[in-house]
């Protein structure tokens, strides 16, 4: 069911109902999403909700249009991006991804300690080696030298990380399918709740690992460019 944005009788814009972004567009709470259909719906709703269409309307209608249109844009921005969409669903399902990391960040700041990042076990060895190389690279850059062999090593490591990054996205998509299947199943099915929780935990795990790899790639790029 799509949320009601207009009066079904006179067609006037209504104040936004506090619904989630999936409901706003009338999509099920699934992670595989037809982005072409989403875009089409976004354009269609923009043509009815955008403040440009209400420039001559009364202040109340203008205010509704502003709120509705900002919600439309926020919803579209979130849902069209696969990672933002996944993170949003986690939050909707009570997995406080962002707040957790924020608390950790603030705690680390308050105590003056470095924020601890858990290295995914399968990357332990690779990361250890890479960090050593990066440290050397920075030292060398300071004194204006460079070692082509080591740059090649780092380049290789970066390539491997990028492959890992792509692989993790595929892993994520596999979890999407599991989630969507569980949404299609009847809610009264016993054990469904627990299964869902497991899928969500797995999704969170994949996202965390992927973020970790992304930050590593960023560090490598920074060290090489500086």
């Amino acid at each position, binding site marked *: 069911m799509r949320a009601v944005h207009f*009066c079904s009788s*006179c067609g*006037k814009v*209504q104040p936004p109902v506090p619904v989630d972004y999936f409901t706003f567009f009338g999509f099920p709470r699934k992670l595989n999403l037809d982005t072409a259909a989403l875009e089409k719906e976004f354009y269609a709703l*923009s043509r009815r909700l955008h403040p440009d269409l209400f420039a001559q309307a009364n202040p109340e209608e203008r205010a509704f249009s502003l709120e509705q249109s900002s919600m439309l844009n926020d919803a579209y921005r979130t849902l069209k991006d696969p990672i933002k969409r996944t993170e949003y669903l986690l939050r909707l399902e009570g997995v406080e991804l962002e707040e957790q990391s924020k608390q950790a960040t603030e705690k680390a700041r308050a105590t003056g300690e470095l924020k601890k990042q858990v290295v995914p076990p399968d990357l332990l060895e690779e990361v250890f080696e890479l960090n050593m190389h990066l440290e050397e690279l920075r030292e060398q850059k300071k004194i204006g030298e460079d070692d082509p062999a080591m740059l090649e090593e780092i380049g290789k490591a970066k390539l491997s990380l990028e492959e890992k990054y792509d692989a993790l996205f595929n892993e994520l998509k596999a979890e999407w399918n599991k989630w969507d299947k569980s949404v299609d199943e009847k809610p009264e099915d016993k054990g469904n709740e627990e299964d869902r929780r497991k899928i969500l935990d797995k999704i969170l795990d994949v996202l965390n690992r992927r973020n970790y790899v992304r930050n590593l790639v960023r560090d490598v790029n920074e060290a090489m460019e500086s």
Partner: protein
Amino acid sequence: MQHLEGFYLCNLTSAIERTSAMERMATDHIVGIDLGTTNSLVAYMQGDSPVVIPGEDGVNLVPSVVALDENNQIIVGTAARRYLIETPERAVYSIKRLMGRGLEDIQAELKLFPFKLAEDLQQGEVLRIKIGERTYTPPEISALVLRQLKRNAERFFSAPVTQAVITVPAYFNDAQRQATKDAGRIAGLNVLRLVNEPTAASLAYGLDKKKHGIVVVYDLGGGTFDISILKLHDGIFEVIATNGDTHLGGDDIDNLLIAIALDDIRGDLGLDLRRSGEAVQRIRQAVIEAKIALSSQPTAKLDVDLPGGKKYQREISLAVFEQMIQPIIDRTVGPCKQALKDAGLKPEQIDEVVLVGGSTRIPKVRRLVRNLFERVPHTDLNPDEVVALGAAVQANILGGGSEITKEMLLLDVTPLSLGIEVAGGVTDKIILRNSTVPASATQYYTTQVDGQTNIAIHVLQGERELARDCRSLARFDLKGVPPMPAGMPRIEVKFLIDANGILRVSAREQRSGKEAEIDVQPSYGLTDEQVENMLLESFDYAEEDFRQRQVIEARREADTILTALAKGKSNPAWLELTNDERRNVEKLGKALVAVKDGDDYHAIRAAIDALNQATMRLAELMMDSAVSTALKGKAMDEADTDLGEGPQAGHPVAKADFE
């Protein structure tokens, strides 16, 4: 028809509302204004095409120059340019560079531009610029330019103009946008929308073509640079990414050339003219002319008369010029690459590149754009006018649209990320740059101390990690938080960037449901009260102005028709009228003479109309006898073409130039 219960705004009068809105639109012209660093323009939608409204001098461009004459009368536009050279301390240009900025932002500007700040300027106060003995804030100076454009439009329509769309550089921040909106209000304009300049240009560009695809707009103007990447799809103009530099443009090229010339003069002639306002302005005019000439010639000559009878002469070749400006135009590359990256596009995915702004006439700039985007850019639009024309299109859309614009919708983005300062002076970004506007973000706050009733929030704009490196937008003080143990209140604060790219904030304490009071202290900019005061002064003035102008024009029209009547009475046709007709015409002529020197516009107007009506047959007879059949049925003042242009004469309108 029964409306559903609980629905808002449903009423049977909506049809009536709509009709009256349409009637209102028929009489109210919403204009589009390009408030530029160097030149400003006003345009409107004439049928299916946007056209620029010329000034009284017939010229489309109004130089963004404001001066005070010896009687302290305000002079704007072409006429004000003279003062830049004669009395530079009584004139100001490129004020757009100071819009929405603080004292600490403009140190570089002050070295290059002859802005004179008020001596009593306090830290944190909105800038005030000296013109002669008076001081004005940048929004007030911009308002004077806007008022000139408003007058030009009012003269053109013979009706008041109160609503406008004004363009701003896409990369303008919140404070610069707010300052522009304030300028509009001070000028007596209801600013329906601020539109980003490159986006406006795309509207004009995409108007008469059913365009699809990815379009890049490269906009290098007098003082600002913008790059915008848009996706055009079934009339929707969706901005995907934008970037820019609000302090990069033709001005920088001029200043570089001026600096070189001053160096030359010091070296060759032993004259230090850096502090001579008049000499610097003469050199400025000369280098601008040379710069323009070099867009079409291989060399240009500088020939400046200096104080003391000396001359500065120099020839600049295109090759030398291009070498000199290279570092300046190279500064546009970074923003272009960043915009492409943000849009997730490679140059080969771009369908078209559109050039906007006078500085894109420079061949070197065109080559740079061609290399960057691997496309030959479009040059068929007049780069000086396309932004104003696009603003007129947007004005038309906001007015309810017409046949040609009814499918058009602009979806623009915020150019800079919005953030709030969190512990450790770090910026927490809550709305990322290139988000489609309107956009919003909700944050939750609580208290740290028992019974705490105020919470301070610092809002920032920019891409940097640390708060001190971002632009401070405002400090909000949430007041009236119900006293509770620390951590208990839960205050929901909603940050919303509206379609103008301007931030709005609202807050609510969730446990008590109370709307929290927000005390906004804009880091830069005028308070509502200040704007209101400036507005009242100039608004009264503008209304008075308009009324007086109406009277003057009606008087001029009265004189025209009375002269025509005097001439008509010596025409043989006069005797062909009946005695009654002649008496009536005489009577109405006297009536017009009696009222025409008064101040009652409506009385003059009525007398003119009555006389026009009464002389209809005389005009016809005169035309018959003059065998001038083409003009049949016209009234007196139009029949006799020898009398010169009356105020009714058609205004020369510059047609938009599309292909």
